[in-house]
């Protein structure tokens, strides 16, 4: 390139003397180089994964029933039948786009939620809620963060008694580690841990076994969802797909009932192990509202150190002994009466209702969770955040007036707040909510 060192180049556009006629073309050619590099990179990045995922693998034909059996059998209830899928580890991307107003999300995250969804507002705390109310490691408040945006989870499981879920955050991490009869919740941001002891062993399907009750791995979400909704859904096999580099069947589940705002749920099921690798929910109005999928997965036994957790020096540890937690585990129904949380309808058209406190009550504003894809109506306790003196007014201010009250409408979750401060919520259309509320 030494020939370019001097003044061989044209002196400038306004000085045409001595301009070689091909200089302009050479410049144009050079400009093409970075453009070409960018274009090459863009096509390489866009096309290669597209090619990889578009090439639907050829798999033997199965019926929807066989697939559902494979999923449910390969999971929790029969250890020997599902031995192959008992151990796995991997990375899961969870994207949720419910269109929930940010204020409401903040409200939910502080444990006073009115629009819990997909079981993320798990039953934690129970009567002990006050004990670790301000703990950053409280699973309920932390996992409800999954209600919005994209998150990365690292999960590992080995048998019914060992699970670990790590929520990978910017410069922080939140961990749930379940090992035998004890479990830890760890929040790196606040350096706080909650220690659960005396858990029942060998009962993986017991509700509330793992604190926080994380359903956001594709596996758990799909198993629960299929178990709960199989009876009222049209289930078909919709081709094959590649997820995390593995061949999978696509199972399409559509509600048979009308009145649900969920249009379709697609579950990608690993052809070899029957492990659900991806769950995607689409609103009936169109658009993906929930997407949880493995980006990489391994069926090897994770290292034993995965299940070990020792609270680091200087961390604040909250003990959560057995009595409180076991009651919590069975507390699904017991909690209903005490907190005035009612569940009406079933499956796709489940509606959860509860009474909002008229003014800020210092302890335990009741809340409920509702969902088309998981067990509905687990009560979650907690305080309203300090700034929210009057949750009823806040919730109402977000809604638009409809017959019978105010409606907070999101892509899938609709919440009706009646004039007498009763909240009806569900992944259902407004008429279903109004019927549940008795509005003409």
């Amino acid at each position, binding site marked *: 390139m030494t020939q370019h060192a001097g003044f061989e180049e044209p002196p*400038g556009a306004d000085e045409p003397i001595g301009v070689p006629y091909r200089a302009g073309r050479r410049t144009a050619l050079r400009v093409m180089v970075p453009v070409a590099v960018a274009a090459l990179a863009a096509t390489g990045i866009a096309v290669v994964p597209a090619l990889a995922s578009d090439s639907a693998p050829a798999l033997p034909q199965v019926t929807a029933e066989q697939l559902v059996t494979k999923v449910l059998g390969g999971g929790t209830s029969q250890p020997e039948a599902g031995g192959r899928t008992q151990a796995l580890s991997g*990375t899961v991307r969870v994207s949720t786009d419910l269109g929930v107003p940010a204020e409401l999300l903040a409200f939910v995250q502080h444990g006073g939620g009115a629009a819990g969804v997909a079981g993320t507002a798990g039953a934690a705390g129970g009567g002990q809620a006050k004990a670790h109310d301000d703990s950053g490691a409280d699973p309920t408040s932390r996992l409800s963060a999954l209600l919005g945006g994209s998150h990365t989870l690292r999960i590992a499981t080995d048998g019914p008694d060992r699970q670990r879920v790590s929520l990978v955050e910017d410069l922080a991490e939140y961990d749930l580690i379940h090992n035998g009869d004890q479990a830890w919740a760890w929040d790196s941001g606040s350096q706080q841990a909650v220690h659960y002891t005396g858990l029942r062993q060998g009962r993986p399907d017991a509700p509330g076994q793992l604190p926080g009750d994380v359903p956001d791995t594709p596996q758990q979400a799909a198993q629960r969802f299929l178990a709960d909704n199989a009876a009222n859904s049209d289930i078909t096999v919709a081709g094959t797909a590649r997820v995390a580099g593995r061949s999978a069947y696509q199972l399409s589940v559509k509600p048979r009932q009308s009145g649900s705002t969920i249009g379709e749920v697609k579950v990608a099921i690993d052809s070899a192990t029957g492990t659900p690798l991806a769950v995607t929910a689409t609103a009936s109005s169109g658009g993906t509202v929930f997407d949880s999928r493995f980006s990489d997965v391994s069926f090897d036994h994770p290292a034993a150190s995965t299940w070990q957790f020792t609270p680091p020096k200087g961390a604040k540890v909250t003990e959560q002994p057995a009595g409180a937690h076991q009651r919590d585990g069975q507390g699904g129904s017991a909690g209903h009466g005490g907190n005035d949380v009612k569940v009406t309808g079933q499956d796709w058209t489940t509606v959860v209702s509860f009474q909002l406190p008229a003014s800020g009550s210092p302890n335990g504003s009741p809340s409920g969770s509702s969902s088309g894809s998981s067990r509905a109506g687990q009560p979650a306790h907690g305080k309203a955040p300090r700034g929210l003196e009057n949750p009823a007014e806040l919730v109402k201010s977000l809604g638009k007036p409809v017959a019978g009250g105010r409606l907070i409408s999101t892509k899938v979750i609709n919440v009706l707040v009646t004039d007498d401060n009763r909240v009806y919520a569900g992944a259902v259309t407004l008429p279903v909510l109004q019927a549940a509320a008795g509005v003409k």
Partner: protein
Amino acid sequence: MSLVEAAEAAGAAPRVAAGPDRATVSGFLALFRSELLLTFRRVRTMALLGALAALPVLIGVVVKIETGGLHGGGDGGPPFLAQVTQNGVFLTFTSLAVALPIFLPMTVGVVAGDAVAGEATSGTLRYLLVAPAGRIRLLAAKFTAALAFCAAATLAVALTGLITGSVLFPVGKVVLLSGDTVSLGESLLRMVLIAAVVAVSLSGLVAIGLFISTLTSSGIAAMAGTVGLVVIVQVLDTIPQLAAIQPWLFTHYWLTFADLLRHPVYWDGVLHDLGLQALYVAVFGAAAWARFSSRDITA
């Protein structure tokens, strides 16, 4: 010895004797050395590095004075701040996390933006090119010197963070983000790795700065343009409606260096970051070449 090998040996011998490759390499090294000296002998560069080094000292002293008030306050404030009082090593991580979004790119923007345009401003660019160095080699030398500054700037923050932290606070085993505790030795190893990742994270910005620097003859304009771009891109990175393009912004994965503090280490974000930086270097390096090699140098 076969005929082919003999021919090869015969062919290779005169090439080594003539040594054009060697000349290129040593020529580049000489150019790089002069660029390096030019960069680091400047009072301005020293002032930038000094300001970066002052940042951990400032944070450390403030935390030391305010220790009473910080206990129990988990949220708010820079990351890892709660741990600093218990373990001085965390001052390095806090300082890097604070410096990476603003201070580090600002200094890098100044150095990279000034690289070519500064020479044009002071009227020395044409003399540089009169020497038979070649424009590509000059550009490469400027780029490498700016990368060296990235490393120096990151080291300035990390080292003063480590020194200040160990002077002001107790030092011991480090608690990772995942709650695991690792020995001091391993944490220092991870710190070196993090510093390297942070320095390389800035290479995309260096390429952009160099490209902007070839666009103008005003050093100030190139610096302001580069630093302004960093600010704009970071603002874009926070707008939720732009989620589709955010993974392509060069600042998007900067803070993934903290993934090296997990157990097991979570590589996805870091690898994304390094890949993206390589892409930016390729595109903007090519753009800088396209502009600089066909530009008329009038200053």
